[in-house]
């Protein structure tokens, strides 16, 4: 198989799929060459992510990375998420073929954007 079992499992049974009403932060990651788009919603309590959801348009790996990425960050402090890398997402999804590494980039970008948004909103309130 070209894709890892972890990836296939996330693609088959995506965790945290769907939108979130009144999130504490929302962000998007995009890979225009591919038209891939991931949107991540965060619910935050005491500076920590307690719930994460995604909506994603893209190939199987991008969908799987969205699932694995949202699962990965639950429980994380917002502050660490602004530095989240594609490599972290890639390892959460069990690795990616060279020509699909952008899947991890799209998702990590969405998470970073959502974390920044949540921090911005916290600062404002």
């Amino acid at each position: 198989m070209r894709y890892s079992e972890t990836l296939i499992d996330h693609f088959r049974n995506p965790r945290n799929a769907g939108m979130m009403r009144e999130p504490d932060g929302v962000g998007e990651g995009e890979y225009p060459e591919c038209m891939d788009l991931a949107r991540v919603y965060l619910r935050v309590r005491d500076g920590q992510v307690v719930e994460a959801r995604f909506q994603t348009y893209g190939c199987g790996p991008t969908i799987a990375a969205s699932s694995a990425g949202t699962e990965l960050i639950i429980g994380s402090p917002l502050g660490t998420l602004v530095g989240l890398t594609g490599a972290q997402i890639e390892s959460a999804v069990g690795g990616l073929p060279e020509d699909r590494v952008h899947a991890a980039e799209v998702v990590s970008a969405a998470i970073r954007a959502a974390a920044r948004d949540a921090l911005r909103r916290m600062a404002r309130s």
Partner: protein
Amino acid sequence: MNRRVYLDHNASTPVHPEVLEAMLPYFGERFGNPSSVHAFGREAREGVDMARERVAGVLRVSPDEVVFTSGGTESDNLAIKGVAAARGRGHLITSAIEHHAVLRTCQALETQGFDATYLPVDGDGMVDPDDVRRALRPDTILVSIMHANSEVGTIQPVAAIGRLTRERGIPFHVDAVQTLGKVPVDVNAFGIDLLSFSGHKIYGPKGIAGLYIRKGTKMLSIQHGGEHERRRRAGTENVPGIVGLGRAVEIRGRDMAAEAPRLTALRNRLWEGIGAAMPEVRLNGHPTERLPGTCNMCFRHVESESIVLGLDLKGIGVSAGSACTSGNVEPSYVLVAMGIPVDWAMGSVRCSLGRSTTAEDIDYVIESVVPLVAKLRSLSPARV
């Protein structure tokens, strides 16, 4: 994953058991080099000669007019570059939706001083013969239009185009890789001078193909070496492959008439089943002038590859219209040329049916694709 359903016959087909049976002796007992004059060579030569006669019989041409090559790609290259080399310069006419074997060959010739016109197609993927007529120039040396497109299956009006080229004495090349053995091909009625066909698309082996070259067509060989194939294609003949191709063409000649309506019915069942079960899906290609087994659909708001992966996990093999190569997605150039909006084209999937396809297969695909697309759509952010 128990059930396996292969709906990618336009990409390749399994070798027909009778084809393999015909080939087997030529790996072992009849292994000689057909150029050798001794008995070992003559036995191999007989296999090649018989295959050539079989192909010529189905095409209703002379065996001298059939050249064997290593694939549909080589046949297309030989037809186009062979004519170009014989002329040295001039203008080529082709269409925007040809296979890359034709498109990139024409592009390569453009870098060598030839001119090329890439004709547009309409929304059904059809070339207009009037466009061909308008594109003809005094220095036009070749017209190359495929018989049917592999992605959407639209069958081109080659007979009408052949009348134009014949009136003007311009060689007419037709890439029939997707049609020989699937729909009637008549090089005389259609005015075709060069016809490409390939083994592995018609239950023959990979790595073998043919090019019909009408007697008198001026062309040069493009692969240099020994004097094989009447000096039109150098290289030791792929004897088992040729024997297999001969048998495959023969079997298609026999089975085509019964198979075409069966596949058309199954394809309609597939499209109707899917079209009835969900919104925002469209069928691409010409409604009637289309390959019997080809069903190309666009699922809006879903990305092709995620459908292909989802079906693959169900044991179903179909192909994505848009292919993401090293992180750069190309929505199918064929669909784009047909004017299909990118947000639709991104979600295109081709199902191509074949010999082994059953109604149960089709129903299984419908049952699998409908919830899959629904699920993928539910994951998707509203883009529109």
